[in-house]
């Protein structure tokens, strides 16, 4: 099924934001916004939900802490009770102070790398992936709003055009995607 996509390009983040507000109140669903830097406040307007990557980072950190604890318990208390100054490691609790630095480091290691890898996979940004921004200027100083007609039932192209008029865009581009 072919789909018509409207790309409205703006020269300023604030102009795009007020335009997006106007369109959304007119019932338009904005599919995507491409920008060279994060536009603060755009997410609630176009309906982008907050990410849950923070929760993922916590879970990865918890995994790291657990692994470090199990590892050190096994190496230092179960498998070989290292005898230092006549004080062998007979219990984890009594020796836990010496294990805190590595527990902390390993927690951070797992949380940071786990989150970073998840972030890259979720974004599908990996080495060799093709760029998907509609115009090369969106990584420089232009801001593009993408409106797909298939996601806007009940709205005609003319209606969207009318709403876009006077929003201050610098270029309007239309494409048919198969």
């Amino acid at each position, binding site marked *: 099924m072919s789909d018509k996509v409207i790309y409205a390009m703006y020269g300023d983040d*604030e102009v795009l934001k007020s335009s997006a507000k106007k369109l959304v109140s007119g019932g338009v669903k904005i599919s*995507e*916004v*491409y*920008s*060279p*830097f*994060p*536009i*603060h406040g755009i*997410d609630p307007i176009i309906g*982008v939900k*907050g*990410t849950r*990557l*923070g929760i993922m*980072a916590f879970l990865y*950190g918890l995994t790291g802490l657990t692994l470090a604890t199990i*590892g*050190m318990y096994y*190496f*230092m208390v179960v*498998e*070989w009770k*290292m005898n*230092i100054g006549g004080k062998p*490691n007979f219990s984890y609790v009594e*020796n836990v102070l*010496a*294990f805190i*630095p*590595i527990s*902390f*480091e*390993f927690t*951070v*290691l797992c*949380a*940071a*790398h786990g*989150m*970073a890898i998840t*972030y*890259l996979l979720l*974004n*599908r*940004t*990996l*080495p*060799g*992936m*093709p*760029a*998907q*921004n509609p115009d*090369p200027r*969106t*990584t*420089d*100083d232009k801001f593009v709003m993408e409106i797909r007609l298939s996601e806007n039932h009940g709205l005609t192209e003319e209606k969207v055009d009318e709403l876009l008029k006077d929003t201050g865009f610098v270029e309007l581009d239309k494409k048919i995607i198969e």
Partner: protein
Amino acid sequence: MQKEAAIREPLILGNKTYHDVTEDVCRPIEGKAPKMWYILFSIALIIGLYGVGSILYLLGTGIGVWGLNKTIGWAWDITNFVWWVGIGHAGTLISAVLLLFRQKWRMAINRSAEAMTIFAVFMAGTFPLIHMGRLWVGYWVLPIPNHFGSLWVNFNSPLLWDVFAISTYLSVSLVFWYIGLIPDFATIRDRAKKPVAKRMYSILSFGWSGRAKHWNRFELVSLVLAGLATPLVFSVHSIVSFDFATSVIPGWHTTIFPPYFVAGAVFSGFAMVQTLLLVMRKAMNLEAYIHTKHVEYMHIVIMVTGSIVGTAYITELFISWYSGVEYEAYAFLNRATGPYWWAYWSMMTCNVISPQLMWIRKLRRSLLFTFFISIVVNIGMWFERYVIIVTSIHRDYIPAAWSMHYPSHIDIAVYVGTIGLFFVFFLLFARYFPVLALNEVKTILKGSGQSYKESPDYHKHH
């Protein structure tokens, strides 16, 4: 858009647009390298290769080629390790701690400071690795099942904590740096004309497209990484200080070591950032983004951390007397008046007196003077580590064993070589990577840019 008080100096000078920011940062990458770059690169490469050669000789012959003896078992190598790790503290401090404190001036300097950090930690890592003598069994520091029976690495030892701390710090800093680089590589990719450059930056930018959802995730990932990296920065040098503080050597066995080392690390790290950036801003025409105000902010950090270091030196001296332990007292008396008095007083002059000059506004805003002070601090902090390490052990309990440390030719060559390699990395970075977080800088342009702040509309309420 966030606005700030009118009396705050703008962070971006002149009449810049978003496109100007892109142009200013990309121009040096897209154009031809100046002749000076080739000259500096060649010098750094030759020095670096000499260091690599010396390391290979060391590995082939054994660490007997160092100037160590029976009394002084730790000297030049660990001094250099601690010096480089200390320098490697500024970058992540700037990008993580200053992000949490919402300090916008970090945006112009965090990219290059973090690159500097990563390269400095590379250099630092070289020293404990080559000190093993048999580099090829370096993986023995990891807790891996082995054929020696129930033999594990010692998790009670600060030296092993260091292995974990440094490797975590290096890899997390690298990830933090690269995640910030991805959108900027995309900018260069979309401007690239030559096919090879386009292909390279296309791979490096991971197909970044700047979608709203991706930026949303980007900001959260940066924030969480900053939150994770902040305690990490403090833990790394605390653990480095444990290498000494948990021993029973007079002069090392000191409970104030962790905060004292961390302050010293930040102090030396900022000095190195200062040294590099003062040259870079000029060479790459980035004076509008990294200007006197940024230099002043950094020098305030140098002043504060330098004062902490100075307080620590004096506290150490006081406690050595107040403790009533004669060996402890002698260790410090010997530092100040013994055969290494010159190293001690160089350290005192460079690290205690010079940062105090920064109370004077005129001096901390003078670019030439601050450049000079940044070099002085780098030298002073090297001497600090040398003084702590060598003077504490060169005269032990039996006077018959008293000795002096004279660095061998290999000691010096390896150290100077790492400085060469560090500059090789940094020059390559300055040539091919965006040295300014250009897309992050755009976010503060309207709030902190000079032309915006001076326009009559800026302070109007909407």
